[in-house]
Every structure is written in C-alpha cells, then in structure tokens.
C-alpha cells in the first residue's frame, strides 16, 4: 500500500502561540490539558504545604486565623480534584484514545477545544476568591449550613466564585465525556471491535459514562446552593422547610462516582504499561473489562457511605454495596499481579511508578474497606483516617498512575525520551515522601485527630506524627525538582525516541513520535488487542483467532 505522507509543513500554516491557542487537534489539546493540570497540581501542592507547615507543631505559627487555614485546605482539595486529577486523566485520554483506536481525531474537535479552555477560566474564577475577601472555605464538600450565606456561613463572593467556577468546569467535563463516547463508539479503525480495544480505551469509556451521568447532578446541587446564597432560596435551610442533608445526598451522588472518574483512567494506563514492561499480555482482558464496568455500575450505589453518621441513611444497603465494590477492584489487582508473574520485567521508570500504584492503591483500598463497616466508620468518620485513605487511593493510586503514564507517553508526545536516572530519583523521593506523609495519618485517625482543624493541643500526643507528615510533605515537594529538571532537559536534548521505543502493543506506537496531524499514514491490520505485537511477530495461528467481522454493508433503503 502506498504511503501518503503529507509534509508537516503543509499543515503548519499558523504560527506558534496562535496555533496552540486556536488548535482543535486532539494531540495539542491533550498536551494543553496535561500542562494546565500540572500547573494546578503545583498550585494545590503549595496550598498543601501551607497546611502541613501550620500543622507541624501545635499552635498557630504561620497563619493569623483559622479562616485562612480553612481556605487553604478547601482550595487544596477543590483544585486537586477538579483542576488537576480529573482534567489530567481527560488530557491523557484526549491524546491517546484516538491514536489507540486508529482515528484521525476526536469526534468533535471544536467542542474538544472548548472543553479545554473552560478549565483555565474555571481555575481563574476559583482563585479569584483569594483576591476578593477570601476564597471558598467550607471544605471541598461545601456542606450547608456552613456554605450558606446565613449568619453561620460564608458571606462574601469566594464561595460563589467557587460554585460558578465548578459549574463551568463540570460542563467542560460533560462535553468531554460526550466527545469520548462518540469517538470510541463511532470512530474505531476497521477490525477494532469493542473487545479488541486497549483497556485504557475501555476505562475512558466507563469513566465517560460516569461523568456524563453523575456530573450534571453535581451541577444541579451547585446551582441550588447558589440560589440559596444569592436569590433567597431555601433548599438547604431547615428553618423554612429545607434540608441540609439534602445537599450531602445530591453532592455525594456525584462525588462518589467522581472518585472512580479520578482513578479508572489511571488504572487503564497502568494496564497498558505493565504488559509492555513484563513482556506479557494483560492477564484476563475480558475479566478486566467487566470488572471496570462493574465498578462503574456499583459506584452509583454507594454514595451515602459518606453520610453514615448523619442518621438519615439506610445503613445496611450502603455498607453492603461498599463492600461489594472491593470485589471487582480485587479482580483487577489479580489481573495486574498475574500480568507481571513470570514476566521478563524491565525496571524502567514507568514500571516503577506502576508498581508503586499497585502497592499504594492496595493499601488505600484496604483502609477504605475498613470504613465500609458502619461501626468502624462511626469512629473514624471525619478523622485523619479518611485523609489517609483518600490520599492513598488518589495520590498513591492516581498520581503515581499519572506519572507512570507521563514517563511512558512522553516519548510519543514529544519525540524525546525522559532521563531514566532522574526519573528513578523522583520515584524514590516521591515514594518515601508520600508514605512518610500519609502513613502516620492512619495512626492519627485511630487516635482521634479530627480533619480540617488548624491547630491541636500538645496534650493529645499527636505532635511527632504531624511533624513526620510535614517532613514527608516537603519531601514530596522536593521530588518535583528532579521531575521538572528532567522535563526541561529532555525536551531540549533528550534521546530521540523513534516510533516505538518501548516495543509496545497498541496502535499509537505505529506512527511517528510525535504523530503527524492526521495521526496515521497507514494502519496495521487489527485482529487482536495487540495489533503492533501481531505486526512484529506475526499473528497466532489463524485457526486460533476468531473470524474477522463481516463488513458487508447493508445500507437502509434509499441510500
């Protein structure tokens, strides 16, 4: 088959900055998402350093009052969730999914661009709170009556800016989800049936369903709170017939599926990386796909486990459902471990971060299962145990997954390899720092230290562990330095990557690094979930592969 390589110059009719600002190319948009998300990661990380610096020792050392502290942890959580992890994973999906399915772009390129640009704007709205008398300070969960504007609550625009910023960011997410679903279902290359798609595409699919269905519910809650605060509404005001617990109900109906949105694509990335560096296919492809779908479905039925102590929750139902969700997650653990078992491991940086993901997410899953038990949760709710749990799954899980994916796909995105030594230094510093910060929080939670307090008494006996956690936090910050240096140096003079530096399995490695604007000059034959492996080594015996789908078209009458 003749190649039809368009020269890159032919497409480059727009200059530098203008091109980046107006692009509708999913690859550039993906890079914009990743860069924007890292920016917010660092900003929210600084806020966390502020929190840890204050908590290192008893007494208010740095902050003048608790209200500033409340803004720090509120903004830390909100920015990390809505401006870092969810968009970061969407950005990786944006870059990789069309390449993995052999498509030239996403289904709606201009909506794709719109989805991205709503993010810096939303972030700006959130941070403007700091300049307008105080940012949101009611926690990322924003429970009324604290988040209302009534005497007890948050007067001032910060909370409203938070609400409007999140409505904007949520809309960006929803449009992205529509884009992903149409792309995945309509634009796969010939031969790529649903069960030949890479698992990352499957996890993005399930994530997009979760985003599509759950985020609008969050939007409705944000709007109801906005109406309460600004138009004299009474949704969450018990004195006039409203119900403060209603907020929690509607909020968590979104926010629980949201945590799966925050982790499933990272799991997908790990599932692409482990087979490549174990030189073995993913163990149990179909089981993995069904487990992912199971997590997505069950994820909608557990939301009130965040509300066990309110007294208005049907406890056995939610406790049971929460325990059930451990099952498909456990299935995936087995998939990953058996992928590596007896494989020929190459301990590259992506693999190190992937193994970090497996071990840390396992711990996070186990301490979450403790909380699924109602009596245990009654004791541990709103203590540092929960902080430990959420950081083990979100940082130990998703963030490690993000870095694994970053080291793995950076060569494809830029054409340059990242430096392995610097990568390993980052991994070691980050792994130690992370565990030093968050492991003590299990003990602090069991000893009764509540969340979201700016200060504590020496008499409680929490001093040493808090100090250890703060040191760990600064170690995590330090681990960012070799990372940033690595990116800077590799972009300028890293080793040239070539099409397929990792000897991988999926379609994105069948084109140049970086790919041309239209993605592929030609596609290899797709007869399994590892088209590149097949291309390199020849297909398994034809009798062992299922027959190719019949593409004889039956167009409806009139066409």
């Amino acid at each position: 088959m003749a190649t039809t390589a368009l020269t890159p110059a032919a497409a480059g009719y727009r200059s530098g900055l203008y091109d980046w600002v107006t692009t509708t190319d999913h690859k550039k948009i993906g890079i914009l998402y990743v860069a924007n998300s890292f920016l917010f990661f660092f900003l929210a990380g600084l806020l966390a350093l502020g929190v840890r610096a204050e908590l290192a020792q008893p007494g208010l050392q740095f902050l003048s009052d608790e209200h500033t502290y409340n803004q720090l942890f509120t903004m830390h959580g909100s920015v990390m969730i809505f401006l870092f992890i969810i968009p970061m994973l969407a950005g990786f999906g944006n870059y990789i999914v069309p390449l993995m399915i052999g498509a030239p772009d996403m289904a709606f390129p201009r909506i794709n661009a719109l989805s991205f640009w709503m993010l810096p704007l939303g972030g700006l709205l959130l941070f403007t709170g700091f300049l307008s008398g105080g940012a949101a300070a009611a926690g990322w969960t924003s429970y009324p009556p604290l988040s209302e504007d009534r005497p007890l609550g948050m007067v001032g625009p910060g909370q409203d800016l938070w609400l409007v910023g999140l409505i904007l960011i949520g809309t960006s997410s929803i449009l992205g989800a529509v884009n992903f679903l149409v792309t995945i279902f309509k634009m796969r290359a010939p031969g790529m049936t649903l069960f030949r798609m890479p698992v990352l595409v499957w996890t993005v699919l399930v994530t997009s369903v979760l985003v599509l269905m759950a985020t609008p519910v969050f939007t409705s809650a944000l709007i109801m709170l906005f109406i309460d605060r600004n138009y004299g509404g009474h949704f969450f005001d018990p004195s006039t017939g409203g119900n403060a617990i209603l907020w929690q109900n509607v909020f968590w109906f979104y926010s629980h599926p949201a945590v799966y949105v925050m982790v499933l694509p990272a799991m997908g990335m790990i599932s692409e990386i482990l087979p490549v560096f174990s030189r073995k296919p993913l163990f149990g492809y179909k089981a993995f796909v069904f487990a992912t779908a199971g997590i997505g479905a069950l994820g909608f039925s557990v939301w009130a486990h965040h509300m066990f102590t309110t007294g208005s929750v049907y406890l056995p139902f939610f406790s049971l459902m929460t325990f059930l969700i451990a099952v498909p997650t456990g299935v995936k653990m087995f998939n990953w471990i058996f992928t590596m078992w007896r494989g020929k491991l190459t301990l590259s940086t992506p693999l190190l971060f992937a193994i970090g993901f497996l071990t840390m997410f396992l711990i996070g899953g186990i301490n979450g299962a403790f909380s699924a038990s109602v009596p245990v949760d009654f004791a541990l709710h709103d203590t540092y145990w929960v902080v430990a749990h959420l950081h083990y799954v979100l940082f130990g899980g998703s963030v490690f997954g993000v870095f694994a994916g970053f080291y793995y796909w950076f060569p494809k995105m830029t054409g340059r390899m990242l430096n392995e030594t610097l990568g390993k230094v980052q991994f070691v510093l980050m792994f130690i720092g992370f565990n030093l910060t968050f492991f003590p929080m299990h003990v602090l939670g069991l000893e009764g230290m509540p969340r979201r307090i700016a200060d504590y008494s020496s008499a409680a006996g929490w001093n040493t562990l808090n100090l250890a956690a703060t040191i760990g936090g600064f170690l995590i910050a330090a681990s960012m330095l070799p990372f940033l240096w690595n990116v800077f140096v590799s972009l300028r003079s890293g080793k040239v990557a070539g099409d397929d530096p990792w000897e991988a399995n999926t379609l994105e490695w069948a084109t140049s690094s970086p790919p041309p604007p239209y993605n592929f000059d030609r596609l290899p034959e797709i007869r399994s979930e590892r088209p590149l492996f097949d291309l390199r080594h020849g297909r398994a015996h034809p009798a062992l592969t299922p027959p190719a789908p019949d593409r004889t078209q039956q167009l409806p009458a009139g066409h």
Partner: protein
Amino acid sequence: MHPLRHPKYAIAVGLLFVLVGLVYWLVPEIGHWHVDYAGVTMLATLGIAMALMAYVLIAGSPNE
C-alpha cells in the same frame, strides 16, 4: 446476533438501576423506616438515562 450486540439488550443496564432504585424505595417503605426520596429519584432517573444512552450507543454504532 450475539445478545451483547443487540440494542434492546443494552437497555438491561439501565433497568438494573431502576431495579436498585425500586429496592431502595421498597425496603424502607415496607419496614416503615425513613425513605430517601432524593436517592430513589436519582437512581430511577439514572436508570432511564442509562437505558437511553446504552441503547443509542449500541444501536448507533457501525455494523462491525
């Protein structure tokens, strides 16, 4: 055609959530405990939305 390919079976995923919503309403209703109408509404509507989404994604996919 394999059941997993036919659009009308895709609706099952939505009906699953309607069923969960039904259970979520029935058990407290029969036991005379507190019924969470917000949760019931959200689960039932989720089922309808999921059924529509699943149907249209499968029915609207290319024939391969």
